[in-house]
């Protein structure tokens, strides 16, 4: 409401955030877990004088830098770009609360980059001790950037006591921070293990050496899986009530939760029984299969993380329709369109006859508009109040959702939406605006697939009978 709304057809603008964030996480988690594994294993290989391991780690590091420093870093910037376009109010709020958190993360990014390049380009040139330390500087910096960003993203799910005291550290160390640090750290190591499997299965030709890598990496991955499990349980325990309800109530989230646990369990058992205790299974096909399971687990958990926040973007603070919780009463009182910094001038420019003496929209005059104009105003309301989650046709398409709904049904749902669906925000406009939105939805809704068909055929029969 403070900003113009970016209309993206079919998938809606916020879905772009989810897409880019998921792609980014696939690589960013590897950047953290991979960094720790590389630093530790390099030091170990130096201590044990394992030249073959060092050669392998160097070749892996090249692949690691190509992927994380370029793709990982740029998609990270991409998230920042997208949230400022598709969720500007929440971004504004987060920036004002966490600007120095992000600034600290930036310092760790710079250290990460310099350490990564020195670790790679000075391989074999630095003495082993210094080289290993630089590897660890990379690993620790990468993990610190994970900690910092987790403090911010977990705040979006559970602000703790921030709403009362407005303190940075209260926001940062919210009830979800530690659980998510656990699960993300574990997930990073687990996912890095899958990348190592993939890389080793392609590049290592010696079966004995491949087996050695498989056992080492499997240990890491199992360790990561244990961390993920602990973090996941704590995450569920410390979820806000409405998020737990959303998780229990939404079938799609149930399925995704099932997928996360099933995929993680599959990966864990293959790592444990096949790669660590068994005779070894590592081949390209095996690595790809586990990698796909890993992507399913991480992708699904990211989706759940986003979905359970509804109706908020920042829990208890910023609603999904880009309005602070504290602003809803005012928006209801003066009207949603009047409240918007862009909607009010837009409406008054298009319909100057609606202006009162204070240059505000006079809702009493709306009745004088034509039916078509009312529908158009309803469309504006749809854009700013609904399009965050609902496309017209496509993602949660309002056309399909409201198939066959009667006018009263639509209007009641609008006015009481947070009571009817607890993952929806409260209606933030007045009664007249609810009618306008209803008229727009009626203008685009599709017929009921069963009842309207039966009605139509009954009507046709009657008409046919009359003709006879």
């Amino acid at each position, binding site marked *: 409401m403070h900003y113009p709304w*970016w*209309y993206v057809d079919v998938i809606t603008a916020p879905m772009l955030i989810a897409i880019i964030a998921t792609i980014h996480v696939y690589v960013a988690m590897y950047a953290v877990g991979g960094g720790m594994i590389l630093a530790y294993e390099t030091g170990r290989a130096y201590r044990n004088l394992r030249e073959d391991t060092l050669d392998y780690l160097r070749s892996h590091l090249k692949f690691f830098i190509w992927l994380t420093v370029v793709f990982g870093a740029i998609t990270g910037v991409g998230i920042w770009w997208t949230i*400022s*376009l598709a969720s500007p109010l929440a971004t504004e709020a987060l920036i*004002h609360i966490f600007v*120095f958190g992000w600034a*600290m993360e930036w310092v760790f990014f710079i250290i990460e980059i310099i350490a990564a390049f020195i670790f790679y380009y000075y391989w074999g040139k630095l003495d082993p001790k210094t080289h290993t330390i630089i590897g660890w500087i990379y690993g620790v910096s990468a993990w610190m950037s994970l900690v910092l960003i987790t403090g911010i993203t977990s705040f979006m799910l559970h602000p703790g006591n921030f709403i009362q005291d407005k303190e940075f550290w209260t926001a940062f160390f919210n009830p979800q921070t530690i659980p998510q640090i656990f699960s993300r750290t574990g997930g990073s190591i687990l996912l890095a293990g899958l990348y190592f499997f993939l890389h080793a299965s392609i590049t290592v030709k010696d079966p004995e050496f491949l087996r050695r890598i498989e056992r080492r990496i499997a240990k890491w991955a199992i360790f990561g899986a244990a961390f993920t499990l602990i973090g996941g349980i704590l995450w569920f325990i410390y979820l806000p009530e409405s998020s737990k309800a959303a998780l229990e109530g939404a079938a799609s989230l149930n399925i995704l939760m099932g997928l996360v646990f099933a995929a993680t369990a599959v990966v864990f058992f293959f790592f444990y029984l096949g790669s660590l205790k068994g005779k070894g299974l590592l081949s390209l096909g095996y690595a790809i299969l586990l990698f796909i399971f890993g992507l399913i687990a991480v992708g699904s958990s990211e989706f759940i993380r986003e979905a359970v926040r509804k109706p908020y973007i920042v829990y208890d603070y910023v609603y999904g329709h880009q309005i602070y919780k504290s602003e809803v009463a005012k928006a209801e009182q003066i009207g949603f369109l009047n409240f918007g*910094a862009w909607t009010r001038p837009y*409406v008054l420019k298009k319909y100057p006859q609606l202006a009162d003496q204070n240059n505000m929209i006079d809702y009493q005059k709306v009745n004088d508009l034509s039916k078509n104009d009312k529908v158009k105003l309803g469309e504006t309301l749809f854009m700013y109040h609904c399009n965050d989650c609902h496309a017209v046709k496509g993602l949660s398409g309002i056309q399909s959702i409201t198939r066959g709904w009667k006018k009263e049904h639509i209007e009641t749902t609008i006015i009481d939406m947070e009571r009817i669906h607890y993952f929806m925000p409260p209606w933030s406009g007045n009664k007249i605006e609810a009618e306008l939105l209803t008229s727009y939805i009626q203008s685009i809704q599709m017929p009921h697939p069963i009842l309207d068909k039966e009605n139509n055929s009954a009507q046709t029969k009657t008409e046919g009978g009359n003709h006879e």
Partner: protein
Amino acid sequence: MNEFLAPINEMGLPAPIWFLKLFKVLGFVLHLCMMNLWYAGMPLAAILSLTAEGDTRRIGERMVMYMPIIVALGINFGIVPLLFIQTLHYSLYYPTGILIAWPWLSVIVLLMFAYYGVYIYTTQVKNNNITKIGKISVWISAVFFILIGFLFANNFSLLVNKDEWLRIYEQTNVAGAVTGFALNLQDASLLPRWLFMIGLSVMTTAVYLIIDSVFFAKNETDNYRNTVRKFSLKLYLVGLIWAGTTSAWYIFGTFSRDLLDAIKTDPIVHGLFVITGLSAIVPLVIMIIKKQNFTKATAWLLGGFQFLVLTFNVLSRQWVQDFSIAKIVDLNRELVVTQWSSMIPFLLTFVIGAAVIFWMLKKIVGLKSMS
């Protein structure tokens, strides 16, 4: 009620305005040092890969030697000014981005291709095996970096041009929501701003080539170093003329009357603009005087002066931005609620981080001097 402007954020600014501007300027100077090198350096490498032979061609190849690191650092330094501009000017920054959302978002895709192009070409140069893919890559990088610059110029000229916001909004909205399929093409300052940055980048690239030849090109011949000196001098001159012409166009062709008057009447601002303009001549003078003999000390001096040229440019731009923004929104309306509890840890992290980086660099510099 301010039309089309977001209300004040009730959390308030987390630091005094001067503090946020200081880091914004610092970050932008650092970003500019790196960004200038890929902005002009990649097109230069692309052109030389096609047109030049021998040592001149080698200049283009050496230009990209450290480009992966330069791009990585440049992108990260760029985070700081963007972070603080969002903090200070959220009511302008978000709407302008949204109005040109798709082209603005395309920066990410373009950057991805440009950066991978850099890696491919650099690897091939290092392996002394430049294939057709390498040649295509360097051109993709060069063109995409220039395009990204165009998109940045688009957004940041739009940031201070509210009339243009409204025109774009009028033309591209669907029921009051924005499609994001627009560019700020009718802004008179767009072209000179964009072209000026190319000129400035050419100058910085010329200085970089000298620094590279003095500090890093130990395996190259004396003949190569001579070629670099002559080439860089010409390149700097071209950049200076280009930047001079486009900045004159930008200032005298697009600045409003009151902006020009403000520059003329305030002696400090007037002085800043004069110094900004004149400072660009100093590296040229050093290049002419030291044409035959560039020692490490003179290379440091040259680099230092170019750093000052960029700093003065950033300060002048900051002043112009402040002046233009003040016409749209009063920054003094903002609450300032300094977040000491997070600012102090940030400053500590910054200092410790700088020390860690210094330690790492010392290790590799020590290694080089030992060898």
